[in-house]
């Protein structure tokens, strides 16, 4: 991986990517794309946002490859601690978002991604398209979500490695959509 000079960002990387990167946890070629993504993050010298909530999710879901990758990120000082803060307006908006308690529970479970991204560089990498859709539909209810940019490393069409190589720019196309 070339280490050309690009803007380095602090990304929130969902444990779904960590889980998919390991062997047999995901359908090929999704897992290969997640591995490519993680290697690119490290090689381009982007940082990963890190707090207790993210750690819990990673600990529960990471495969062998992601564990090794995470270790190398620690060695390189590329895990960046970010504030862990429960945003009550966000959680209130989630609670009022849907009559389906299952959806609410799922969104509350993923709220830590939004909270960490707002405390970092507003970028989330996750392969959870359901969560992406639900948070997109919450845009009107919670204004700060407009600042969030979401990529799915498992989706080839999103060309996330190229995005990383370009400095993970805040592109309109990667914003949450209602």
């Amino acid at each position, binding site marked *: 991986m070339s280490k050309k000079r690009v803007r380095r960002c602090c990304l929130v990387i969902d444990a779904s990517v960590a889980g998919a990167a390991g062997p047999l946890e995901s359908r090929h070629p999704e897992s290969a794309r997640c591995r490519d993504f993680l290697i690119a993050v490290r090689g381009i010298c982007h940082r990963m946002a890190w707090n207790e909530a993210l750690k819990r999710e990673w600990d529960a879901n990471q495969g*062998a*490859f992601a564990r090794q990758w995470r270790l190398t990120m620690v060695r390189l000082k590329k895990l960046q601690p970010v504030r862990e803060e429960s945003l009550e307006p966000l959680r209130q908006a989630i609670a009022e978002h849907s009559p389906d308690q299952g959806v609410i529970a799922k969104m509350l479970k993923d709220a830590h991604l939004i909270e960490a991204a707002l405390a970092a560089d507003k970028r989330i990498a996750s392969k959870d398209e359901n969560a992406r859709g639900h948070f997109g539909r919450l845009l009107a209810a919670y204004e700060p979500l407009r600042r969030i940019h979401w990529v799915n490393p498992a989706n080839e069409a999103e060309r996330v490695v190229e995005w990383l190589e370009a400095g993970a720019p805040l592109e309109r196309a990667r914003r949450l959509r209602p």
Partner: protein
Amino acid sequence: MSKGSNSPREKDHEPAAIAEIKVAGFKSISDEQSIEIRPLTILAGANSSGKSSMMQPLLLLKQTLEATYDPGPLLLNGPNVKFTLAEQVLSRTSKKKPAELFHVGMRMAGGDCFVLTFRRRHKVGFTVDSMTESGTSGTYTFWPGMTEAEIIKTGYHPRAKLIKEDLAKTYGVDARWMVRRRRCLLEVICIARTAYGNSSHGGLKGEPKKSILRAIHLPGLRGNPERTYPVAAIGPVYPGTFEKYTASVISRWMAESKDKLAKLNADLRLLGLAGGVGTARRNAAEIEIQVGRLANVPPTRPEDRVNIADVGIGVSQTLPVLVALHAAQPGQLVYVEQPETHLHPRAQFALAQVLVSAAERGVRVVIETHSSTLLLGVQTLVAEGKFAPDKVKLHWFQRGKDGRTTVRSGELDDAGAFGDWPEDFDDVMLETQKRYLDAADKRLFAR
């Protein structure tokens, strides 16, 4: 090494530790490179990146000073390093011909430095071109053939003229200052030649010489396991390479130092290599090394012990390293090439604890390694607060397209992370894992 220095260490005749080594013109180290020596110094990099070349000049000096005869300015082919031609030693700065000079310098823990420059001589090998000493009193450079006037002008001996007059008066003959070669070093000396022999004043400063002689060297190949080992004298100076002293040192500890033997046995168990080690004197000239048959149970009966040649080669390759680390005194440099050789990854990780323990005792441990696991072991001990990060120094060796070695040095923080230090073990590990996983996934999902 500084003139008139009166530190408690010097009074005790304990030489200062080597704190820095610098080399230029030697093999791939064309431009001067230096490495700081901390209690635990780690040299890493690809094969043939120049790691050994950084330490070989020190070993050349050691084997020259230790030779049982005067081998001239440099013993090229000795027990520690083996060259047969001057051209093998010198950097090739162009395709046509190698450099004419190389130098090696050292800074001691007290701050005093010396630099020795060697020049290639056709059909002779090398000559000492110059020697520079730096200390609190100044920097002085000497070379063979220096005139008396030039020596006095340096101010190296502030009372040089008085000393010369005193000597001449005492012996009734002429006295003269001169620079004289002593093996690979130069000494500045005032000699009065009398009918009964020479009387002199001055001479070699002992500290760098002692520090070089005290260096312990464990090469990457530490010999095949033998049924018996020759009896050898015990340190603190170990001429040549260390492995041949292993049996005799253990034998001595069995008789006189149970504490050291217990620590050695604890290390063997920590590494999962043997339950314990002992020796049996076979005759006046030979000693047998016996190790516990089971890895984690101390041998108590004779039938629990087997000859070291009958167990895995990891034991015979690692035992000399462990013995050297316990035998070394504070300040003494122990240079180990590939300490992880033949060790299982679990033992490589545990080896970090052994190296750190020696470093904590004040031994200057310099290792050359390709083991990411060993490095991770050191990082873990730092992150756990069991080893201070400022006691570790990392040096990464790499060669440019022109073949020249450069060294990039790094430090650990209190989390054991090394940040921008360009270690590539992890790159290789992730790339190889990814390649395998991509290929395996393809197969599995094609079923």
